[in-house]
């Protein structure tokens, strides 16, 4: 048990997982309440275009992925609000467009030994101390801003129209939430991967909602689910020699099913 922590990459992975768990859990709480699961999937996939752009320009893929994901998530929100399309359709378009751009960018770049697989499905060996700083800063920003705007975000999730009539800045809150959703996706990509992170944008909140109907316990349970999934998933993947991101997602899915069954017996 001690040897695992003597490895620097495992220490980094655990620290990243522990910092990301509350961020993903709280974001997933709102994703579930606002039924934005598919937005999460779309934004996560579109980050791929940003990563590829980073490689093409020879700058930090994390930086370009953040810019890209924020732009796409806000574009989805804007079209859902103003266009004649549903947000659902907008996601379908942007998702494919950003992925295709990513493939083209990778083809254009002269870097051939790019670890794309690591970005898509997670690679804990790639987590550097710089990544930890970025996770701490952006994750901290996401958590603090949700804490400060919690009641407004809750109200908008409960009933958008009523919130608007009550003078809540609904458009600002929508775009703000899409922005922090995009940030959460990008800071999770090395440990879980952009394909798999959408699972953790849904499962903690969905699992918690099965066994409680109060929001404070729901958030606490969501955080616990995310922590058990990431820490447990990292441990298990290390000893069983499995892919860490996939193990984390499988473990969180198993927890969801257990709580789903527990929820059916509750009433």
């Amino acid at each position, binding site marked *: 048990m001690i040897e695992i922590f003597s490895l620097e990459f495992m220490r980094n992975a655990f620290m990243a997982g522990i910092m990301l768990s509350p961020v993903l859990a709280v974001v997933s709480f709102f994703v579930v309440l606002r039924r934005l699961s598919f937005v999460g999937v779309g934004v996560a996939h579109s980050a791929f275009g940003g990563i590829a752009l980073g490689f093409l320009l020879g700058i930090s893929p994390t930086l370009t992925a953040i810019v890209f994901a924020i732009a796409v998530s806000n574009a989805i929100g804007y079209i859902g609000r103003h266009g004649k399309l549903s947000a659902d359709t907008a996601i379908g378009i942007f998702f494919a467009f950003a992925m295709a751009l990513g493939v083209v960018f990778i083809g254009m770049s002269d870097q051939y030994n790019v670890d794309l697989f690591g970005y898509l499905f997670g690679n804990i060996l790639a987590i550097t101390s710089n990544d930890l700083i970025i996770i701490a800063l952006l994750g901290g920003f996401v958590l603090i801003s949700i804490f400060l705007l919690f*009641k407004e975000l809750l109200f908008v999730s409960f009933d958008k129209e009523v919130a608007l*009539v009550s003078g809540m800045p609904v458009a600002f809150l929508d775009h703000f939430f899409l922005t922090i959703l995009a940030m959460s996706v990008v800071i999770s990509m090395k440990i879980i991967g952009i394909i798999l992170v959408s699972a953790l944008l849904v499962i903690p909140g969905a699992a918690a909602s099965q066994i409680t109907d109060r929001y404070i316990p729901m958030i606490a349970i969501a955080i616990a689910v995310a922590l058990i999934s990431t820490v447990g998933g990292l441990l298990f993947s290390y000893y069983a020699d499995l892919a860490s991101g996939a193990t984390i997602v499988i473990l969180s899915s198993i927890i969801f099913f257990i709580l789903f069954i527990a929820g059916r017996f509750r009433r």
Partner: protein
Amino acid sequence: MKEHGADIGNKKAVYAELQDVWVGYYNKWVLKSIYLKCYQGEIFGIVGPNGGGKSTLLKVILGLVRPQKGVVKLFGHRPDKHTRLEVGYLPQISKADRSFPVTALDVVLMGLYNRIGFFKRPGSKSREIAMEMLARINMAEHAEKPFGLLSGGQQQRVHIARALASKPKLLVLDEPSTGVDSVAQEDFYELLAKFRDEMNISVIMVSHDIGVITAHADRIACLNLEIHYHGEPDSCFEPEIMQKVYGKNLNIMVHDSRCATCSLKKHEHND
């Protein structure tokens, strides 16, 4: 320029006023030249068929839709941030958000968020006001119950407590009879009249259910793209007005001896 409806005297303040309001979507008018006046202390009912522009009219009054033409005034001013604080809104009760993780008390507290301000949590003072509102709707013992587990009628009362918690002057209701059984409806309209009298507020409600509107509103407007009638409930039943508002499908809307289709076939109704 024509002014619809009877003026009930100049003593009472006009809380909501629409003058020659036109709204259209995609080259089609949804509201045509709407004139409307709602006074302090009255329940104003707007009745009309689905698709007749009722929800658009509500959105205009709430400031969510800006008319292409015409003037909207709330409490004598153009709708803005300040008038918004004076308006409470009750949405249609929907079964969609049954699992939303809030209690009845949490929902009433939402009505106070705009007074509490950003970055702050509801304090003991807010909870006191919210509990008092719950007591006034006889829901104090359900304060900690999950909102989604309440009946449609209870949810509606909680919404009214939420909408009135910030002490608005005007309450706007969208289809208040939807999703609520008839016993709960009676309680609800009784409660509405009580709040109208105690707080001296105005209530504007829209519904396709003409029976409910005529039974509970002080004055009504019949709306189908245009306003065909604006005045006391009883005289809304003029056959030609009913025909204009509801068209040929009137018989499925109303079953009343005074309704247009029935008066056209008098032999079917003797009472």
